[in-house]
């Protein structure tokens, strides 16, 4: 299998397979070996390996590529004249008009209009919306929708349970097919689907349904990510109702705190063990997610020892949780301490006694070659030589020659001169090349 693309770097597919452990030992070796020589790939791989969500690359990459394409098109549009076609203008206007109508009606129903009014308004626009909404919604029949809408207006808080940006058709579709009256259907549901979607469990159905309807209403104003804080506030309100049933998922809220410094930790991942459900803590270290009692939460991040919290009754009675993470020195890959920007060589070689003394020595010792004196030659000789670890000078090379015996004289003076202090690297003397210039002037 080709591990790297033709451009010689790891492809997203390989990274994913590496992280999920689908590669054979030999293939893993090839990836690791490549990473040893390629900081870009190795950094990326390291960071993806530390991510708990297996979906890391797909979703984010799609978004990034979309943003990138948008950016490039924006530029392209600047350079190329844009010719409008009349009906594309008309279509845009139509969409804008629809959007504003929807925003207006939505605001009306949001600002506490009586439930009955929201009801009468619901059937007037859904069909146009379906045009550019998720295809799954088409499944909803009108009568169902009305029923759902009633619940939506009755319980306006519920809709904030899930951030709008997170909703996926795959997740919504099954719940839409269910009877909106929850208790009647609890036993009838297939346990397999229950296990697959802990967050969409029976008691949640009215909520998700209501949310769907609500989202339909608010299509143009879909907020990409609602504040987590708001979400958890809403969740806290719902909680007492749900704890009643043992197997139903409950909203677990909590805070993650660092053991050493005691401050809250943002960006920590909190996942339900054995599932793909997970959230990260917000900037205040607060998280909130739906989990089934009896399941286990895994809390962790690079540099911290992961912790597992079993959701038993005693834990659940003490919400919100306070989870303390201790730094885990072992889990960090070894870091080599080095000065940043500074030269690796802590000490450059220099003459014993310093340059001033060295210059004095040169002035005193150097003999102007006879030939050069006669020809009135002046100038500098450029020399390169190696300072050995023991301080002796070897490997003289003339970089800039003056001739007439000057080069030889310069080498002689240096060779017979004082020893040099060798270059130090990590406090050990090493060989080092030095360049210097010797001036000949009358």
């Amino acid at each position, binding site marked *: 299998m080709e591990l790297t693309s033709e451009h010689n770097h790891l492809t997203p597919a390989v990274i994913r397979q590496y992280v999920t452990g689908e590669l054979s030992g030999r293939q893993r070796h090839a990836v690791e*070996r490549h990473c040893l020589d390629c900081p870009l790939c190795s950094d990326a791989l390291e960071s993806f390996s530390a991510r708990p969500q297996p979906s890391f*690359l797909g979703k984010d990459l799609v978004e990034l590529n979309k943003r990138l394409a948008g950016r490039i098109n924006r530029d392209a549009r600047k350079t190329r004249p844009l010719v409008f076609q009349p009906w594309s203008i008309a279509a845009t206007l139509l969409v804008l008009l629809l959007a504003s109508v929807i925003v207006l009606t939505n605001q009306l129903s949001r600002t506490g209009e009586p439930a009955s009014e929201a009801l009468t308004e619901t059937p007037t626009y859904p069909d146009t919306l379906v045009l550019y909404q998720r295809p799954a919604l088409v499944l909803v029949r009108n009568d169902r929708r009305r029923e759902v809408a009633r619940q939506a207006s009755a319980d306006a808080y519920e809709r904030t349970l899930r951030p709008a940006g997170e909703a996926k058709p795959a997740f919504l579709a099954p719940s839409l097919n269910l009877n909106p009256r929850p208790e009647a259907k609890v036993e009838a549901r297939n346990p397999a689907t229950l296990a697959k979607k802990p967050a969409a469990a029976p008691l949640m159905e009215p909520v998700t349904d209501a949310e769907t309807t609500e989202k339909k209403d608010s299509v143009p104003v879909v907020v990409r990510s609602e504040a987590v804080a708001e979400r958890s506030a809403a969740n806290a309100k719902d909680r007492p109702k749900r704890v009643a049933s043992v197997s139903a998922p409950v909203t677990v809220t909590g805070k993650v705190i660092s053991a050493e410094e005691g401050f809250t930790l943002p960006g920590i991942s909190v996942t339900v063990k054995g599932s793909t459900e997970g959230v990260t803590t917000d900037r205040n270290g607060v998280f909130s997610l739906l989990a089934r009692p009896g399941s286990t939460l895994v809390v962790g991040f690079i540099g911290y020892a992961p912790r597992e919290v079993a959701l038993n009754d005693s834990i659940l009675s003490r919400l919100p949780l306070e989870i303390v993470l201790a730094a885990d020195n*072992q889990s960090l890959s070894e870091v080599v301490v080095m000065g940043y920007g500074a030269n690796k060589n802590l000490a450059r070689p220099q003459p014993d006694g310093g340059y001033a003394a060295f210059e004095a020595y040169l002035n005193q010792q150097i003999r102007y070659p006879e030939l050069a004196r006669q020809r009135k030659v002046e100038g500098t000789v450029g020399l390169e030589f190696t300072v050995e670890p023991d301080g002796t000078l070897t490997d003289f090379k003339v970089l800039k020659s003056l001739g007439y015996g000057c080069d030889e004289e310069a080498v002689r003076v240096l060779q017979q001169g004082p020893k040099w202090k060798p270059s130090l690297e990590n406090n050990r003397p090493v060989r080092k090349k030095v360049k210097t210039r010797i001036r000949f002037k009358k």
Partner: protein
Amino acid sequence: MFFRRSPRKEPAPFEKLDDAELIRQYQDPDAEPRWDVGLVGELFQRYVHLVYGVCLKYLRNEEDAKDAVMQVFEKLVEELKRGAIRNNSILHFKSWLHTLVKNHCLMWLRSRQSKGGREAVAYSFDELVRDAGSNGEDRLGMEFPGTGHLTEEETLEQALTRMEKGLRELPTEQRTCLELFYLQQKCYKEVAQITGYDLNKVKSYIQNGKRNLRIYVEKHQG
């Protein structure tokens, strides 16, 4: 479909071009249109997942990382326009890009730190600086020790002997890990299983062992 623009020239099949050619065409003074950002887009698109990974490593937050990726793209466009990288240095494009991304993250963290105190700066500044120092120039354009440095009078045989000698002088852990990894082509996980060392230990043994070996070989050359 409503927004299709007037028909325009088919874009050049950028996918077929290699990195160097993309950069060359972008910088080509006779190109039409001049500074076609699509070229850089194609180039960046090849590395975007890696750039994202690096940003994620330093910023530790998906949203920030995504924003950073887009900013890095702008930077790349600018740098290429300035002629920061020319055809002859294209071999180092990856290292160069890595440095660009890292520096960007560094600047981002620095500005964040001075603005809003310590909030959300999970990866502390010092840590980053150390990290940056540890692999920047160290790995740039690096070959496995011994190759690339052969002088005429020195045969491959001698180089190999020297390397073997260097290998023997390494600490036991580093030597075993290096042998298993390079000679027997085991992956980290297998090395960890065979030796019983921790996985992260194995990684650092291999990295350090390789570095030490290189230093040894360079020192005893000639």
